[in-house]
């Protein structure tokens, strides 16, 4: 909303410098966004919040200014004129869409130029001159906020006005020379034959006032804000008129605006008013609900000590009528153009915004302990994130929206993401049901920008048909860490990813014995390089090497990348007990290695589980730790076998173990392995 300071000065005495006025308006909730010099005038561009349609005109802003500067407000005198009572031919078919329509028929107008003064005002606010009639309607719109429209009366078929919904397929060429297709959701002003204006939005070309116009019909009406808003959106057409109607114009202004415009027309374009009538149920005189509030309540709400006189002065300046029987209680009647004022907090805001929020006191409350406990997920999530950072991974935050093509490219077409009805672009048409496409996109971005070594994690959500689920995604690709002492850089592989996950679980105090990794059949991983992560018999995630074709399809110039996705909701639900201290051993442990040739279908996991189980049954000692220390595949071993070496630590709680005893127990264990799992001791 633009205002001209010269114009403003017609109604209030702006007795402060421009900068001060700008600052005071801003601090009263009418933010000045831009100050421009136009000719000899200054123009403010204001941001008017949607609750203040009354400020979308010069008079409204003059009223505000008078309250802010505490000066008097002198609106132009608009005298009611007794016009001929003859009726215009107006029918309202849609009484909800149009509450009231005032038509005035003016004969023999002289179409001509607009006087300089009025023109300067219009130009300052960015409007160009059309002719005196149209300029007057625009002037009154800017002055009073009441949108008006003038028709060339002789071009209205049957000389009549019908306010109705458009029929399907009806068309109109609007004054901007665009042909627009209408439908029954749109309210139109029609004559006997066709629409001549889109109600509240824009007039039609065929009936516009031109140099040859003799007689005009001046429209001043109240249209339903919602209807106008929908029409404006549907047509993609926002005008000075629709902008005001959809925010709600002052119902009293329908009449006043018409009178004001007619006065100007008679003055500047002569002519004679032949008929003027109001059709519809609109009550132009209407009182809003009174609000009862006490000074104590006001002061209590803001924690201040204002006095009665101050509050009363401000409210009166803003157009409220204030009654008070004593010095404490107010009975406040908001003016008709302030439909946003509905209750006590609104009254409080009116008073304090004029005083200035910055002039109010400030207190720091001591907040009582809430009876809400902290969301436990936060601490758990934080622990996981810290751990992954400490393992060298960077946290990423990716867009949660993807598209079907990406899902297909990631070989996850079987997943159903929640589709968006009104996506911004087809690229972001659904909420992702998996983290893989998001992470692959950023892998591609990084590689394209020369960032070749990528170790990322995201603590994001995936969106499944019935729920949004917090999920961890990990993506690794490239060299593990660049150490100049290494002869060859270490390229990331499956075991790096698995190690990171195991470390994370350890740090989370999740008992690794309850986690198992089993061969997976997920298609987006390379065969033989993929595993399901199982926690207490429930699959909580997957990890593996991403299928090369997927990388190619995503435009990633790389053959190896590793991905894991873990359902954190299940991890969060896992009960981690308070860590119980285990006394440190008093006696030394004894180490024995065991080197096996193992058929490829026997997993290390199985061997370790078995050893751990048997370790519990040893006599006088136990296996306190077991490490996997070597994997061998090559010529020294049968083709269908792998060589595994485990290192076991034997220990007793009661004594220092004798070498012979350990050797004996170890030997038995080895024999048992050979017997039960058909491994070969190497």
């Amino acid at each position, binding site marked *: 909303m633009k205002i001209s300071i010269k114009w403003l000065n017609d109604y209030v005495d702006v007795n402060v410098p421009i900068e001060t006025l700008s600052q005071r308006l801003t601090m009263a909730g009418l933010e000045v966004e831009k100050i421009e010099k136009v000719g000899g005038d200054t123009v403010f561009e204001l941001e008017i919040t949607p609750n203040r349609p009354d400020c979308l005109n010069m008079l409204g802003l003059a009223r505000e200014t008078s309250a802010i500067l505490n000066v008097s407000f002198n609106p132009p005198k608009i005298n009611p004129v007794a016009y001929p009572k003859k009726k215009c031919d107006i029918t309202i078919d849609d009484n909800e869409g149009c509450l009231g329509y005032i038509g005035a028929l003016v004969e023999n107008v002289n179409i001509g130029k607009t006087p300089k003064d009025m023109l300067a005002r219009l130009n300052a606010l960015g409007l160009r001159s059309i002719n005196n009639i149209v300029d007057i309607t625009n002037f009154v719109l800017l002055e009073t906020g009441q949108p008006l429209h003038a028709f060339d009366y002789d071009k209205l078929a049957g000389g009549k006005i019908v306010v109705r919904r458009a029929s399907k397929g009806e068309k109109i060429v609007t004054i901007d020379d665009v042909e627009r297709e209408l439908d029954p959701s749109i309210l139109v002003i029609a004559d006997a034959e066709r629409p001549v204006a889109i109600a509240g939005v824009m007039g039609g070309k065929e009936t516009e006032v031109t140099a040859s116009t003799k007689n005009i019909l001046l429209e001043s009406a109240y249209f339903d804000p919602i209807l106008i808003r929908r029409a404006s959106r549907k047509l993609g057409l926002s005008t000075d008129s629709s902008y005001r109607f959809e925010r709600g114009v002052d119902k009293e202004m329908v009449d006043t605006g018409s009178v004001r415009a007619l006065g100007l027309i008679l003055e500047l374009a002569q002519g004679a008013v032949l008929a003027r009538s109001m059709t519809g149920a609109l009550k132009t005189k209407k009182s809003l609900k009174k609000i009862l509030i006490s000074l104590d309540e006001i002061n209590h709400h803001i924690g201040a000590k204002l006095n009665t006189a101050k509050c009363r002065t401000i409210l009166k300046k803003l157009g409220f009528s204030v009654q008070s029987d004593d010095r404490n209680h107010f009975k406040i009647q908001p003016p008709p153009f302030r439909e946003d004022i509905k209750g006590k907090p609104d009254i409080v805001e009116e008073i304090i915004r004029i005083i200035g929020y910055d002039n109010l006191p400030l207190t720091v409350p001591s907040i009582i302990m809430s009876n*809400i406990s902290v969301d436990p997920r936060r601490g758990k999530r934080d622990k996981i994130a810290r751990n992954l950072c*400490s393992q*060298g991974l960077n*946290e990423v935050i990716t867009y949660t929206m993807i598209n079907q093509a990406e899902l297909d490219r990631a070989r996850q077409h079987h997943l159903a993401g929640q589709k*968006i009805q009104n996506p911004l672009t087809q690229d972001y048409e659904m909420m992702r049901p998996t983290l893989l496409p998001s992470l692959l996109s950023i892998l591609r971005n990084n590689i394209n920008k020369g960032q070749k070594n990528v170790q990322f994690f995201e603590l994001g959500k995936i969106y499944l048909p019935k729920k949004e689920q917090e999920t961890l995604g990990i993506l690794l690709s490239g060299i593990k860490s660049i150490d100049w002492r290494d002869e060859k850089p270490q390229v990331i592989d499956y075991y790096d990813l698995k190690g990171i996950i195991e470390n994370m679980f350890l740090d989370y105090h999740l008992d690794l014995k309850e986690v198992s990794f089993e061969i997976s059949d997920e298609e987006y991983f390379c065969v033989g390089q993929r595993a399901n992560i199982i926690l207490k018999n429930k699959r909580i995630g997957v990890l593996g090497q991403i299928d090369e074709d997927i990388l190619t399809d995503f435009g990633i110039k790389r053959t190896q990348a590793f991905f894991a996705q873990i359902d954190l909701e299940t991890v969060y639900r896992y009960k981690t007990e308070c860590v119980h201290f285990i006394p440190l051993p008093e006696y030394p442990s004894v180490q024995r290695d065991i080197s096996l040739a193992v058929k490829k279908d026997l997993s290390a996991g199985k061997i370790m589980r078995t050893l751990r189980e048997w370790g519990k049954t040893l006599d006088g000692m136990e296996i306190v730790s077991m490490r996997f220390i070597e994997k061998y595949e090559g010529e020294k071993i049968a083709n269908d076998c792998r060589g595994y070496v485990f290192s076991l630590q034997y220990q007793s709680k009661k004594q220092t173990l004798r070498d012979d005893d350990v050797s004996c127990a170890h030997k038995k264990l080895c024999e048992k392995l050979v017997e039960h799992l058909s491994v070969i001791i190497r």
Partner: protein
Amino acid sequence: MSWNFQQIQVDVQNDADNVASSHELEAFRIKYLGKKGLIPKIYASMGILSKEERPLVGKNANDLRNHISQILEGKKQEIKQKEKLSTREDLDVTIPGARANLGHRHILTQTIESICQIFVQMGFVIQEGPEIETEFNNFEALNIPIDHPSRDAFDTFYLETPDPQQKERYLLLRSQTSPGQIRTMQQYDPPFAVVIPGKVYRPDAVDASHSFMFHQIEGLYVARDVKMSDLKGLLTVFCKKFFGNDIKMRFRPHFFPFTEPSAEVDISCYICGGKGCSVCGRKGWLEIMGCGMVHPCVFEAVNYPKGKYTGLAFGLGVERIAMLKHGIHDIRIFYENDNRFLNQF
């Protein structure tokens, strides 16, 4: 047999001076103190000396033996030091250390964390809510009627998923963290103070300052007798703690459907110090958050007894604050996740 102790002293000194290794030192020890060395020889020869000579020679021999022992000890240390030095390689101490990879939290996470922590210190509790919301929680309960122009500011993505609780309605992606207020109030009775961080979505075309996905932090404090001055106090403490004690602040009246009175909080631009620059749009002020006193309609929507409680609420955009604080000029960079960007924070 007579002993020229003076000469011996000289010989000892010369021999000692020639010792350069622990091997030579051992030879030196054997020559003088070994079983067949000079000192034992001197002692052995004393039997044939006269009564008068004996004490004198004995004393000289003792002195000599002590002297040699001292030399031995000194030389031993000297050689040890020398050998320590000679067996070690001289490092180039300036070669970069072998650093393990260092991971970083995303700057948005860090910003959320540091903002929330300030409120936690003041007694707030962190809550979270879902991103997929109902129209009721995102709009109606927050006093935002359908088809009201104020909805423009909260343009919304709708899902194709029907709202299970309301016929002919669809679920949506929350366009603000404020539905978290509703969820908190539906679940708990006051007093409480919560901050609710999270992702929000609006169908804004992406450019340097707009993103269809971004983060907000919502704050809500409801109790009996919460006052407007409390709102000013809390947010002033926050701004000073987060942006520094020197910043200036102002509370500017604004409109939000769910608060009344409502305000926007501006801080003095700390690029230009308030003089006006391109970052603050020549205004000298930076808008950083919206706030206000909870609208009675909101309490009504969650069925709180009429007039029993008052509350304050505020909301801020995390990206905007991170951009201001760290001098980031393009919001898109947060979601590009370029390693070089991530490594900076």
